[in-house]
């Protein structure tokens, strides 16, 4: 999972041919890899408005918040439970930063259906980075080792950083740039903390 996120980072930086090896080192050694929920770890298409990207980021924060909350409630991974709970709380704060910046930009035209109607998405399904359906990720996480959960969480954070970097580059206003920069910094901190748990 980490390597797909890594390939996405390289694509962002202008690498024309960046490939992630399926299944990682265990597949290379002929072992079956611990399969991620879906093959879809991916980067977003840049042809969207900043408002849409803010809505997308909000939804992905919500998905991450719920995923981490669930991970933080597992007795099995007690050593990481506190970390997952803190990450969950942080992602919730990120949602409110994003909503504020959306309101500030949209002003009177703010869409009461934020974020889903901006993205033309129906309600009821939560998503993670890469368009992974939250419930599928939670099913996958059942009975997984902590290492696999950390690997998956790291890939979420790398993708979140990627998204905020792209949003910072896209934004024209100083305030918006600052908000996206602060968000990517906070996700970087998450990435460090998750990596330390491996």
């Amino acid at each position: 999972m980490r390597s797909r996120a890594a390939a996405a980072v390289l694509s962002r930086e202008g690498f024309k041919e960046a490939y992630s090896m399926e299944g990682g080192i265990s597949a290379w050694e002929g072992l079956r890899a611990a399969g991620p929920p879906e093959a879809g770890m991916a980067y977003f298409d840049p042809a969207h408005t900043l408002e849409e990207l803010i809505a997308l980021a909000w939804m992905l924060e919500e998905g991450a918040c719920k995923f981490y909350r669930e991970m933080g409630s597992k007795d099995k991974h007690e050593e990481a439970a506190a970390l997952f709970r803190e990450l969950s709380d942080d992602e919730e704060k990120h949602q409110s930063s994003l909503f504020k910046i959306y309101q500030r930009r949209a002003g009177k035209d703010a869409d009461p259906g934020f974020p889903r109607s901006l993205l033309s998405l129906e309600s009821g399904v939560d998503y993670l980075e890469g368009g992974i359906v939250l419930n599928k990720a939670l099913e996958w996480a059942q009975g997984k080792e902590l290492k696999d959960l950390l690997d998956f969480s790291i890939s979420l954070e790398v993708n979140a950083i990627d998204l905020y970097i792209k949003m910072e580059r896209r934004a024209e206003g100083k305030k918006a740039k600052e908000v996206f920069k602060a968000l990517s910094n906070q996700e970087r901190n998450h990435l460090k903390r998750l990596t330390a748990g491996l």
Partner: protein
Amino acid sequence: MGIMDYFKPVDTWSPDKVRQFLNEKGPQEYNLIDVRTPKEYEEGHLPGARLIPVGELETRWKELDRNKPTITY
């Protein structure tokens, strides 16, 4: 419109494809990057792989030639 309108898949290669590619090309023709931790790298890595943990890639990609095919794992 669906959520996947906001994402594009990352290109992936199977281990067999990677193996074939590495056999056919010289090490100066590609970047092979291990994005795991130093500890995982020490426990075993692909021949010729260079360690750049995923969290460092954001700054350290500059060490690589981005015109070369690049494989991450």
